């Protein structure tokens, strides 16, 4: 009998959600010329949250024109210290409304409230604070002979896994450098970007400096193809990233891509074992595995494979899956029905290919899109579940015998966004890290982020960096 079962602890803050949202263009909320709206759904309940304007070609064009006008009229000419004031104001606006934004993010995207509250929203504010400080110090980001100049109008397309945070990563450095923006949030998670537009409006950001156009892939493609856009920044799937790169080829547009990943998470036999388990759990079950840098390919030294499987199996049972708004929920809802189907399809391919599936035993809520925390043992490098990005709470466990083999297997992927290493030996950590082809390598930790630290990929994980001075340079003509 349960003697200390956690009672429901739902977050009680209410997020104001309008019935219908227009497009945020030139500082005003406007009806879409397309005349169309689409619905955004709470993936934990399958209930419609709001109707959101669909930006067609003409709407995207209006947004780009507004951004161009604002660029020429105010933003590029503004004293950098004054630009900083606006960015600081946005940062404070996020902080002041942090709880409300966390609830909104959780309702629209399905992630646990403890993550949106403790990770997404505070880190979003931190990016604005960080880059606000850069606005009047841009020459320090320059190399000898370079002049700090903005690029112009930036088209920014963000994904559904960290909707506000990914917008913040892109908006903050772009604004600090004096660019104006047309932001296209993901189709399934537009609400926090729209809330951010409202915060920007309340911060008196000059009209047109930030425009938000909601829509689907076609909206994004129109933005990418618009001739008056100078820079495209995209975070999303490798497939779409490749299409974007093809489309901008020869146009002179600057491009940064942050794409998929299949991160190797290496655990050596001398690792601090219980903390490694926490690292593994954080690496793959954080945000239901909807993380491009997720530690989805676990490489464990053969001699500790068995004990890791035992420990991880036990740990899975303590994960609490359910209502994302409950403060004790560890695993929330899968972002969309489509994504849930994709996860299911890849898991069944793993079973067909002969891997062994272990899942947390829990009842899934009757409504909503949920998938239990899972991992596969007996996975081989050739299996689809070892090569393709699942983007769900599903880990593939492989083994290695020597450090060389660990490095070889870790690098044997078309991706290269992140990697993790667990060993109690500092020298081994440093030694292995230098051979991993990944943009970020975490040693005895995972999923650590800071605005001052650059993030980005190798090979099919994209190019360009976000965060830090590196992220700043992506928004400067030099």
């Amino acid at each position, binding site marked *: 009998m*349960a*003697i*200390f*079962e*956690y*009672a429901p*602890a739902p977050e009680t803050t209410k997020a104001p959600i309008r019935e219908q949202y227009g497009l945020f263009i030139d500082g005003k909320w406007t009806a879409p010329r397309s005349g169309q709206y689409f619905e955004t759904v709470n993936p934990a309940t399958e209930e419609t949250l709001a109707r959101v304007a669909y930006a067609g070609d003409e709407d995207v064009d209006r947004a780009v024109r507004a951004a161009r006008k604002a660029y020429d009229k105010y933003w590029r000419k503004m004293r950098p210290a004054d630009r900083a004031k606006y960015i600081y104001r946005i940062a404070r606006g996020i902080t002041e409304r942090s709880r409300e934004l966390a609830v909104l993010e959780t309702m629209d995207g399905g992630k646990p409230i*403890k993550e949106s509250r*403790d990770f997404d929203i505070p880190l979003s504010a931190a990016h604005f604070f960080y880059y606000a400080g850069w606005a009047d110090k841009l020459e320090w980001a320059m190399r000898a002979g370079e002049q700090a100049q903005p690029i112009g109008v930036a088209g920014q397309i963000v994904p559904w896994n960290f909707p506000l945070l990914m917008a913040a990563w892109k908006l903050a450095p772009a604004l600090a450098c004096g660019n104006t923006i047309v932001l296209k949030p993901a189709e399934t998670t537009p609400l926090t970007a729209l809330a951010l537009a409202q915060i920007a409006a309340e911060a008196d950001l000059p009209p047109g400096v930030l425009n938000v156009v909601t829509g689907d892939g076609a909206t994004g493609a129109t933005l990418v193809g618009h001739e008056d856009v100078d820079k495209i920044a995209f975070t999303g799937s490798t497939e779409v990233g490749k299409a974007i790169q093809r489309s901008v080829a020869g146009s002179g547009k600057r491009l940064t891509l942050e794409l998929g990943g299949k991160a190797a998470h290496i655990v050596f036999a*001398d*690792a*601090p*074992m*219980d*903390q*490694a388990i*926490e*690292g593994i759990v954080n690496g793959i079950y954080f945000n239901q595995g909807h993380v491009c840098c997720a530690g989805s390919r676990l490489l464990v030294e053969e001699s500790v494979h068995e004990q890791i499987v*035992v420990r991880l199996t036990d740990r899975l049972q*303590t994960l609490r899956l359910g209502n994302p708004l409950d*403060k*004790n929920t560890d695993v929330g809802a899968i972002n969309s029905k489509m994504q849930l189907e994709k996860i299911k399809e890849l898991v069944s391919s793993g079973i067909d290919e002969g891997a062994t599936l272990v899942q947390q035993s829990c009842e899934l809520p009757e409504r909503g899109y949920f998938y239990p925390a899972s991992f596969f043992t007996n996975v081989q490098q050739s299996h689809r579940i070892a090569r393709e990005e699942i983007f769900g709470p599903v880990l593939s466990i492989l083994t290695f015998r020597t450090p060389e083999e660990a490095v070889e297997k870790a690098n044997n992927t078309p991706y290269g966004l992140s990697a993790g290493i667990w060993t*109690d030996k500092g020298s081994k950590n440093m030694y292995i890290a230098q051979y991993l082809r990944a943009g970020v390598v975490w040693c*005895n*930790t995972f999923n650590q982020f800071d605005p001052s630290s650059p993030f980005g990929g190798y090979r099919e994980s994209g190019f360009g960096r976000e965060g830090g001075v590196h992220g700043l340079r992506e928004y400067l003509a030099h």
Partner: protein
Amino acid sequence: MSVTVDAVMLEARAGSLAKRSIKTTTKVAGIKLAIACMDLTTLEGKDSEGRVRSMCAKALHPAPHLPDVPHVAAVCIYPNLVPVAKDALRGTAVKVASVSTAFPSGLSSLEVKIADTLEAIAAGADEIDMVIDRGAFLSGHYRAVYDEIVAVKTACGSPSVKLKVILETGELGSYDAVRRASDLALEAGADFIKTSTGKVGTNATFPVAVTMCEAIRDYTRRTGRRAGLKVAGGVRTTKQAMTYLVIIKETLGESWLTPDLFRIGASSLLDDLLMQYEKELTGHYAGRDYFPMD
């Protein structure tokens, strides 16, 4: 060889367990559980017969006007006061625990420590809270520490006498050392491993409790024998107590949430638990004077 512990990730894990939201029915259940698992303690130079009798009365009936509140698990006292506590608690289910082995420093000969223990047992102590020799542990004489625990366990005689081994984690200097001392005490036959004496600057902490739970979990997995955890020192608030329950539940499992396998050594904590309990029942905080002191 003990597994190593990474401090940064351990503290992050302990921090996330401390953020569990414990409300309403869970809080009421947790408060009762914390009281039922409490070793109500007085370990001061000025302890007297009167003081111990008064504490024993409270141990038995923590709040007479709240009949659903259970009695505590045990009282924890100095060895010379065991006869007083035994007399006060005769015929009840509240156990008498005696500190032993030259508590709190543990710096005496083995003969003195054994004599200390035998005297407490002879006076009727149901449980012995011994300290390890931290000096020996920190200078690498693990065997000596181990042998001493085995000797005290033998002196306890009947297996019904529970031996709690105090590691004094605040003096061990690292989580690696906490883990190693935990493994050593468990192998030597400790029925409980206990964090602290309450007599040094740093007492029980959440990361230390997590580490000790992990040692117990791995030991039980290896041997099949279930050992318990006692957190002691500095546990003063209901919120802290709830976090320790969360740590036990999520590291060892709910079956460890019993006085046989979990104890909280505390004194003033009881009053805060009672105040929070009444608040959950009535919706109001009562002042301290509405609860018997001691």
